[in-house]
Each structure stands twice: as C-alpha cells, then as structure tokens.
C-alpha cells in the first residue's frame, strides 16, 4: 500500500494474477500445486505456508501468475503472516482471488468471503473438502450460495482433483471477459 503505487485505471498486464486466500489449512497449497505443477510443502497442519509462493500456470491459453498466501482469518491482520497476505491483496490488484474454504466449516469462513467482496476483489469461492463434508452428510446448496453472494461458487475436493477443471474454466472466463472488476467507475 505504498504511495508510489498509484492505481492505473485500465491496466494491461500480459500476465494475469491469480491469488489464493483462505484460513490456514483449507488446501490453498494443494490448489497451488494443482494449478502450477510446482510443489510447495503441503501439510495437514495449519500455518505451514509463511511466505507467498509464486508459480506459473497457463489457464485457457492465458499466462497466469498464481500466488499462494499464508492463511488468514480476516482482513484485519493479527500475525505477521496475515499481514503479508493482506498486503498482497490490497496492493497488488489481483485479477482473480480464489477464496478457498473448508466446506465443513463454511459458517465460520464466510465472514472472510464477505470481507473480500467488500474490498471489491474479484472473488471466486471454492468449497474444498466436499468429500469430507459429504461424509458428514452435510449438504451445501452451492447454487443458492452463488446467487446470494453474486459470485461463482465451486464445490471441490482438491486432494483428488475434483473441482479444479471447473475452477480453471471460470478463471478463464473471468480473465477473458477482460473487465476491470476492481474499480467500478466512481459515482
């Protein structure tokens, strides 16, 4: 959020930027690996990612830079790692923000989705761990959720790869529609 970085109205970046955010231990790093084919340490263990990992991916012919962020609980940071994630979101004008949540704990995680939307970020909500949720007989009406939030909602189980293709195609849609989501003309 430095002053030197002013915000150009229409920005032509040849490489689109896709940022993965979410609470700790929801599967951001797994998704990162799936999208980029690069390996970052993944663990069933919150807080393993403490730095932003950057990787390349080609989505629908478009070159993308994918950024994996440390886990954050809210946009109001407490720990150093949360600060890192937020700074990235607010400064670097991502083209797509994928909010990865644990479907089983949706009610606790939606508040962050709302906060991201409030910041005007182009959010896609990815409901990860649907397999575990289903095992608990938890049913999520993701169509209704998408309607309520006004954004795409994708049920997924990243560990087995479910949902990744759908995410790719939606990210592609976002990128190719080429709009500037971030700053709707000020009224």
């Amino acid at each position: 959020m430095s002053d030197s970085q002013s915000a150009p109205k229409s920005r032509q970046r040849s490489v689109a930027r896709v940022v993965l955010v979410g609470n700790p231990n929801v599967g951001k790093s797994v998704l990162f690996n799936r999208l980029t084919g690069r390996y970052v340490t993944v663990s069933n263990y919150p807080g393993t990612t403490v730095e932003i990992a950057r990787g390349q991916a080609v989505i629908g012919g478009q070159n993308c830079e994918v950024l994996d962020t440390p886990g954050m609980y809210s946009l109001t940071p407490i720990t150093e790692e949360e600060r890192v994630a937020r700074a990235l979101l607010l400064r670097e004008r991502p083209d797509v923000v994928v909010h990865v949540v644990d479907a089983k704990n949706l009610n606790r995680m939606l508040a962050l989705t709302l906060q991201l939307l409030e910041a005007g970020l182009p959010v896609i909500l990815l409901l990860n761990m649907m397999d575990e949720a289903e095992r608990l007989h938890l049913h999520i009406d993701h169509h209704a959720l998408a309607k309520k939030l006004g954004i795409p909602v994708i049920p997924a189980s990243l560990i087995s790869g479910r949902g990744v293709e759908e995410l790719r195609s939606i990210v592609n849609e976002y990128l190719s529609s080429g709009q500037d989501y971030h700053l709707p003309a000020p009224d």
Partner: protein
Amino acid sequence: MSTNTFPADRIITYPPPIEEAVQHIESLLSAEYTVHRRAIALLLLQHDEEIEGMVRRREGEERFARIAEQIREAQLHFQQPLAVVLLAHRQRVAQEIAREVLHTPSRSGSSFAEWLGRVCMQPLTGIPILLLVLYYGLYQFVGVFGGGTLVDLLENRLFGEVINPFLSHWVKALVPFMPIQELLIGEYGIFTLGITYAVALILPIVGTFFLMFSILEDSGYFPRLAMLIDRLFKKIGLNGRAVIPMVLGFGCDTMATMVTRILETPRERLIATFLLALAIPCSAQLGVIMALLASHPGALAIWAGTLVSVFLLIGWLTARVLPGTPATFHIEIPPMRLPILSNVLIKTYARMHWYFREVFPLFIVASVLIWLGQITGLFDLALRALAPAMLLLGLPDDAASAFLFGFFRRDYGAAGLYHLQENGVLSGRQLLVSAITLTLFLPCVAQFLMMKKERGLKTALAMSAIIFPFAIAVGAVMNWILQTIGVNL
C-alpha cells in the same frame, strides 16, 4: 457488465450510523486506491493502522482530520468499539447466509476418526499414544530399521564390500599421485567419506524419518499434539501454537526457524528460535543418534531425558528473563484421516530431494576442506585445539574430528560418531556424552543464516555465543555425573 458482476460492494448493509459514516468518508476520499472506497472507509472505521497511515499520507492532514471526525461521530452511537460492531455484524450476515444454504444432519454418533482425534488430545490417553508413536515411529522404524538394518545393508554391504573396494582399486591403479588418492578414497576422501556418508548413512535414516513424519503429518496428528502440549508449553512462555515450529524442527530446524513467524509476539518468536537452535535435534541428527544409541537403550533414555530437561529449563528461564505476557492459543484442528499414499510419498520425496540437494554438495565440500586442512596441517591444529574440550568431555582424541565435522552440520558430526562407534572406539558413556553435546550444538550453517535473517545478526550471534559453551558444559557435567556415580552403559 457481462456475467461477472460484483454487486459485492454492497453485500452487507451495516446499521444506519455506520452506513452514513461510510458515505461521508467515501466522499472525502479523493486519492486513487487499489480497492473500493467503501472498503477503505470500513477499514478506517475499524481503526486499521496501516490504512489510516496510507489515507493520512494520500489525503493530507486536513482531510484526514475530517474523516477522523466522522469516525468519532459514528462511534458515539455504539457502546462497543466500532471494530467489534462491524465484526459482529459481518459474522451475523455470514451465519445467516450459511444457515440458508447449509443442511446439517442431526448429529449422529461420532466416527472412529473423531474418537481417535479426541483421545489424542486428552492427557490421560494422549500421552500413552505419544509414547507409542515415539517408540514405534521413531525408535523402531527410524532408529532400528532405518539406522540399523538399512544402513548396515548400504554402508557395510554395498559401499564397504562392493563400491568402495572397487573404486579404491581403480583409483590406485589409475592415479599414482598419493595426495589425489587421499582426496578421493582416503580416510576422509570424497568417495569414502563424503559420498558414503551421504548415501549410505544419511539417506536411509533421513528417508525413513521423513516417511514417518509425512504419515503423521498427513493424518492430522500434529495439531492434536499441539493441543496436548499446550499446557506444558504455557509454563515456558510459549503456547501450543509454538508446537508447530517445534515439531517441524524435528524435520529441519532451518525451515522451522522460518515458521516461527506464525507466532504472534516477538517474544515468543525469540524463545522458539533459541529453543530450536539449542534443544531440538533435526531429522538427520535424530536419525543418526537413534542409530548410534539404539544398541544402548539406557543411553538413549538418558539422552532424551537430558534434552527434554534442557528444553524445559532453558524455555522456563528464557520466559523469566524476557518480559511480556504469553499469547493466547488458537489453532484449527483438521479432521483425523487415513494418510493418503500419494500425499505421503510426494511429501517424503520433496523433503528428501530438498535435503539432499543441500547436504550432498556440503559433504563433498567438507571432504575437500578436510583434505586441504590435512595437507596444510590446519586440520591437526584444529584437532589439537579441541583436545582440552575432549578431555573435559572424557572423550578420546579421535572424537575431535567428529566434533569438527559437527561445526559444519550436526548430522555430519553425528555421522562421524557413528563411524567411531562402529570401530569400537567409544564406550557407552562416551557415546552418550558426545551425542548430547553434539545435539545441543547449532545444527548447521544454514540454520545460523536463517536465524540471522529472521531475528537479526546480533541476536543470532548472541544465541550462538551462548549455545556452544553451553553444549560443552552440559556434556562435561553429564560426563562428570556418569563417572562419579559409575554408570555403565
């Protein structure tokens, strides 16, 4: 706008006084921002310091004062701080949405995984489970199988009887020059020491360790361990969250030092960094020491007991010395699950790959350095300089070379000890004392660099200046105690 519209900037409507303030603040913001003005206004209402600083710089003092006035006015309508009001409101909206789209079943009987997850966290059942994990996972699998069976197979059979004799024969035949022969196949040669250590000793040990570590990690056991140990950790000024870097430290202290960032206060980060450098043995070291002491279970128990005591004592002391209050504990507990084979294998592979890439060149460089040292006489000089310390620790002069290796990397030093033990040079007591001393040393050059990066050069140097004499002192004291009470190991 096409399919992707974001009505989102108005997804939550806050209570009227807040909405009014937001509108006023929005109209006062004149600079360009990368996010919605509404978002900036809301963050300002929550007293976000970073945003306040930015807005103050961009809008100027006069405008900022008018914004601040709006915030003060809004606050008058509420008893709680605005940050709390906003948070609560947002959470209420989130809950409402969740309720509408979620269909939860009536809670049925809990599954086996849930039950297992619970008993891992309760002291009465959790501690026996921890001991089982340590005994079978660490001692039997890594120490006895990895460090015993596999190492024997690779080092003695493959390298000792096949590869090294073969190389030695050909090097002697092809290179008539004695010093070069020494460099390649001598006592500390690139092949006979560097590559043999790396492939025949470290590889099987680290491999089995990482495999076990990945299985436990993927199962979701570690966060439960964190819950279990939380109470104990509070006593030493850390909370359960600090278990994460500590446990990772058993994999690699360098990586774990970086992960201390997840701790909330600088005080906790400092304590954790210090404890990692001092008392947490990394995988390579742990494995070699397991292998080293597996034949002396008594020594292994004393080694573990000493390290735990040092860890607790130093942690407790550091917490006394450093002012500050312990942070609160908050950790997500993921579900227990059966580890997924592909996950475990990828993780093990990635860790080994990374470890090997770091360690392999270093072992070769060490061989070359020692060779240079021998030619120039510096090596003997250094060994002689260490002689008093060896005397203090009750160790034979030969052990000095292992300690010298230990300055490069603790595991390298431990591997040196392993070698001595195989040759029957060390008694049980001597093994134990050297294992304790080496474990307390700083793990490796890489960790020092990471400490410098995370905590600053002064702190890193200060910690090292404490650690080295302390390690030798503990070793000397242990030696004295064992000798005095005449323990035979």
